[in-house]
């Protein structure tokens, strides 16, 4: 693996029947970077993420280099309802002494006292924090987030954004978040990719210093530019505002 790349993808093409979802896609992610992948539904962003997570087999002609330690958080928490919270966090962890590690990860997401709870008793936000702890406890080099906050209410989402940024700063995994929410992308990431028809249509650095605010002029400008990339007309934006 080259030293300045955590992820390197060359010529990734994915077809489902006659439908080409990814079209000779190239992608490089730098170590410790936080990248957002924006795209309309059907743009292939979930397919790309699934390939990176190893859930879909990579086609033979593509060249894909990934770190060994990959973890993911999905749109739904996907906790095993028959395992207590800490067992869910420790799921599949190799070695002994997994319980203290799971407990430490739970403490980091602020759920130490829920370690023995059943997943069915958690709120949506709590369950998603457990999913985050389950990903972090593996100390991943690559953290994949597949619209992890889409199903949460607005207030919980704000808290989750802060939590994800804190954890990213402390642990420093290369992070790729798939989202259709432009605000979320601009708020979190230092690089935004726009996926369109299976190709990366835009690759934009976010130079706004953190903490970022929705009112910041640079924020507003970037947001407008990204919406335009996604094909949302300026008039629609103005009317909605």
């Amino acid at each position, binding site marked *: 693996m080259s030293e300045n790349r955590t992820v390197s993808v060359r010529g990734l093409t994915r077809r489902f029947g006659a439908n080409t979802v990814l079209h000779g896609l190239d992608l490089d992610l730098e170590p410790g970077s936080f990248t957002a992948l924006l795209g309309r539904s059907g743009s292939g962003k979930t397919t790309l993420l699934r390939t990176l997570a190893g859930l879909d087999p990579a086609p033979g002609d593509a060249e894909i280099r990934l770190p060994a330690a990959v973890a*993911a958080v*999905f749109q739904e928490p996907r906790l*095993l309802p028959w*395992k207590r919270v800490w067992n869910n966090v420790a*799921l*599949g962890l190799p070695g002994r002494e997994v319980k203290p590690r799971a407990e430490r990860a739970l403490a980091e997401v602020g759920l130490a006292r829920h370690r023995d709870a*059943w997943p*069915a*008793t958690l709120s949506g936000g709590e369950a998603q924090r457990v999913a985050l702890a389950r990903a972090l406890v*593996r100390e991943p080099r690559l953290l994949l987030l597949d619209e992890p906050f889409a199903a949460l209410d607005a207030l919980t989402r704000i808290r989750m954004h802060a939590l994800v940024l804190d954890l990213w700063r402390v642990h420093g995994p290369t992070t790729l978040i798939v989202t259709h929410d432009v605000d979320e992308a601009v708020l979190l990431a230092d690089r935004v990719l726009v996926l369109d028809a299976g190709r990366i249509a835009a690759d934009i650095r976010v130079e706004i210093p953190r903490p970022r605010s929705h009112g910041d002029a640079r924020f507003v400008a970037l947001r407008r530019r990204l919406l335009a990339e996604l094909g949302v007309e300026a008039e629609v934006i103005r009317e909605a505002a």
Partner: protein
Amino acid sequence: MSEHALGARESLAPSLPRAVLPRPNLARYRRFLSPLAIVLLWQAASMAGLIAPRTLAAPTTILAAAWELLVSGELPHHLLVSLARVATGLAIGVTAGIVLALISGLSRLGEEVVDAPMQMLRTLPFLALVPLFILWFGIGETPKIALVALGSAFPVYLTLFAGIRGVDPKLAEAGRVFGLDRRGLIRHVILPGALPSGLVGLRYALGSAWLSLVIAEQINATAGIGFLINDARDFLRTDVIVVGLLVYALLGLGADALIRAFERRALAWRPNLIKA
């Protein structure tokens, strides 16, 4: 069903004024009033000579007969014989059901080999196999146990197979991302996910096993609750017949309670049990 009704009544209680609170207890006992009244009417009718003893014995006569059978050791003896038949048949049938469900649930090849014949066989009313079983296995213990085993294998197979296939593929996917291999997936995701469905099957299997036992014990038995009933029929002892029926009912209830207790432990994670 009755549990739901009770639960609803209890959940209403906090909204009632304090003075009315003792009432729900009375309401619980009220449920037993009408069965009690029926038994009292039955007793009165028997004593008045309206119900002939050879039609149906009086409740007191039945109680006396039960006591007599119990003290003489006759009832415990027959009970043990019947229990041994059910236990053996269930052990064989449930094991076979589980093994077959695992084979066809966990592999495509297994499904092709096992599932089609199982689905065809299950449409057969298994009690209709009695004549064939007598020809195959004679009239000893074997056909009785085989009938119980057959009756209990199918519910376990069908529900466990459906349970395995019904496990949320998203959970299996998450398991794979977090490093579970096939064995880990089966152990941590698929089997626990299929357990609730499998336990429903086990309850059906128990019901089916008792039914099979009743039929099986009509086949030339020399011991067992069924023998007790058949023997009593020859002597017009309706009291003993009713004692036998009551024992069958109690056994069924007991087995169901056992499974429920197991469910409460094994499925403690289910939302409805957490709240309870």
